């Protein structure tokens, strides 16, 4: 039982990463390698604010969300803006990869390469077992993010502009939508969301510099399995991947986590290349 619950919790984190991929993909058609690094920054900054500076949890939450938002803005500014204006297909992959590497290296130099503990967020004993906050906090945050995104897309003007941009960027621009500013906004949002998820899951993952790449990879696998562009798919894919990882760790051993994850990706891509909830894309000829 504890296996399934912890699997669900880490799956929620993957789902959050997949949601962030979706937010960035909707406005820019870019899958950023630095996606998981926003969550990593959330965890590291949260631990730093609370343990080293001794700030209370709400202030630390605000601080790390702000740091994540700033990182999202920097991603857009440094790695996306100039590259997209050149419209070469490969270059954004390289620039976000470079940014991710630099971020990881800087954090490892500043924070150290060992995972450090993340302080308790809510007053609770360590004997709660399955009801422990480190399991349900990430799940709650992932659900909250998904519901919030759905409301944002359906109810607000900016959400509708995002949808228009993701449907047809040229048409949106022709109707007077400021595409560049919206893209920057979406990256800031993605950074804040990732940071929030990383903060909530800090007790599960610890504040660890190498978390970013793992999350980028697993979040992407969750997204590809669930269907690119679908928020429901991101949730289902993330949950399934987390559970599968946990069960595989329980039965085979913890050494084969990536193998299992890539196996899932391959099976889904072979059977249903667009993912479980994805829409088919016609090939341009």
């Amino acid at each position, binding site marked *: 039982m504890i296996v399934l619950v912890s699997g669900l919790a880490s799956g929620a984190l993957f789902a959050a990463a997949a949601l962030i991929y979706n937010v960035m993909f909707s406005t820019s058609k870019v899958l950023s390698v630095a996606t998981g690094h926003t969550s990593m920054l959330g965890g590291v900054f949260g631990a730093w604010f609370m343990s080293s500076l001794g700030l209370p949890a709400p202030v630390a939450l605000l601080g790390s969300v702000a740091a994540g938002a700033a990182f999202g803005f920097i991603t857009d500014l440094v790695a996306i803006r100039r590259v997209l204006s050149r419209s070469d297909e490969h270059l954004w992959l390289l620039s976000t990869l470079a940014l991710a590497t630099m971020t990881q290296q800087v954090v490892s130099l500043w924070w150290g390469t060992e995972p450090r503990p993340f302080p308790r967020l809510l007053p609770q004993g360590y004997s709660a077992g399955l009801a422990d906050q480190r399991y349900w906090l990430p799940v709650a945050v992932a659900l909250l993010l998904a519901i919030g995104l759905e409301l944002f897309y359906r109810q607000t003007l900016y959400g509708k502009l995002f949808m228009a941009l993701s449907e047809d960027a040229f048409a949106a621009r022709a109707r007077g939508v400021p595409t560049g500013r919206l893209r920057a906004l979406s990256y800031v949002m993605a950074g804040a969301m990732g940071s929030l998820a990383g903060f909530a899951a800090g007790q599960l993952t610890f504040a660890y510099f190498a978390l970013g790449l793992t999350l980028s990879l697993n979040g992407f696998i969750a997204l590809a399995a669930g269907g690119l562009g679908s928020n429901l798919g991101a949730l289902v894919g993330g949950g399934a991947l987390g559970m599968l990882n946990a069960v595989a760790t329980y039965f085979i051993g913890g*050494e084969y986590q990536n193998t299992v994850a890539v196996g899932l990706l391959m099976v889904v891509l072979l059977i249903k290349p667009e993912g479980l909830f994805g829409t088919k894309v016609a090939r341009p000829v």
Partner: protein
Amino acid sequence: MRAFTKRQPIAILALAACLLALPLWAGDLYKVHLAALIGTYWVLIAGLNLVAGYTGQISVGHVGLLSIGAYAFAILAGRHGWHPMLALGAAGGIGGLFGLVLGLPSLRLPGFYFAMTTLASALIVSEIALAQPNLTGGGVGLPVPGFPSPFGTTAGSYELILGVASLVTWLTWNVARRMWGRALVAIRDSVITAQAVGIPVFRAKLTVFVFSGITAGLAGGLFASLQSYITPDTFVVELGLFFFVCIIIGGRGRILGPFLGTVVLTALPELAAPLAKLGNFFYGLLLLIVVLLVPEGIGPLFEVLLARLRGWRSQSWQVKPDLGRLAAACGAPHAGKPRKEITAAGPLP
């Protein structure tokens, strides 16, 4: 590709002689070792260059194939007592086999999916290396035997690596400048056009990927014997990024550029100590700068500068509309000109 000028064979011969005699003029053994390391990396990067530089497939996971080659060499030559030369060949073969296994599913995927799959494959290889202590020694690692007598010393192994590297360079050069190279560049620039002109896209990609797997396996064998002891920590994912950066910095679709990139990027952190501490940050920064400022790589930049120095004017290939002909074509029905004149002017509708 330019044709041979008269001076070029002489230049190549002189370069070859220089490189052959490197142990004599390098001074200390460390520099020879460094040169051997550069050669080993180049064996892999030359193969990867065909995949990444020419075909435009972003593979960040070649470090996994390098690791497979290294372990194959260490196990065959060390534990089973094969002749090191035979084991080196086998390492290349096994690298090619794993390239095939990895390429068959992943090369069908679009860009980002392919990059992530290769990244994951590198992680899988290091996972398995850690999880199978009976085969690979686990986290403790494996000792690796050196090469027999003529290649036993540092200088000797350098000469061997030089030989393999020259062979691989010659092969990739042949691939790049003939029909295959054109096909690969066509796939990189537009898959749809490549399909339309009858290039078997998937087969071409797979062939080149398997070739790069073979060179990665060979490089793994050489690398292992150079290091003389390997652990899973030797083959970190960032090494894959390093290979990739060498190619991008040198310029895609070239051979000399990535070679210079390899030399500079391998030698710089060794010679300048502060850079070694920053390590991956430095590579990331370099990659970012190149992508943002000179996406064609530094190689073409040098070519342009060289051309300027020699006093060549840069040629502009701008197409100017032939306004007179256009006017004739558009105005033809009204002016009542005979239609024959227009068709004679060119293929205007």
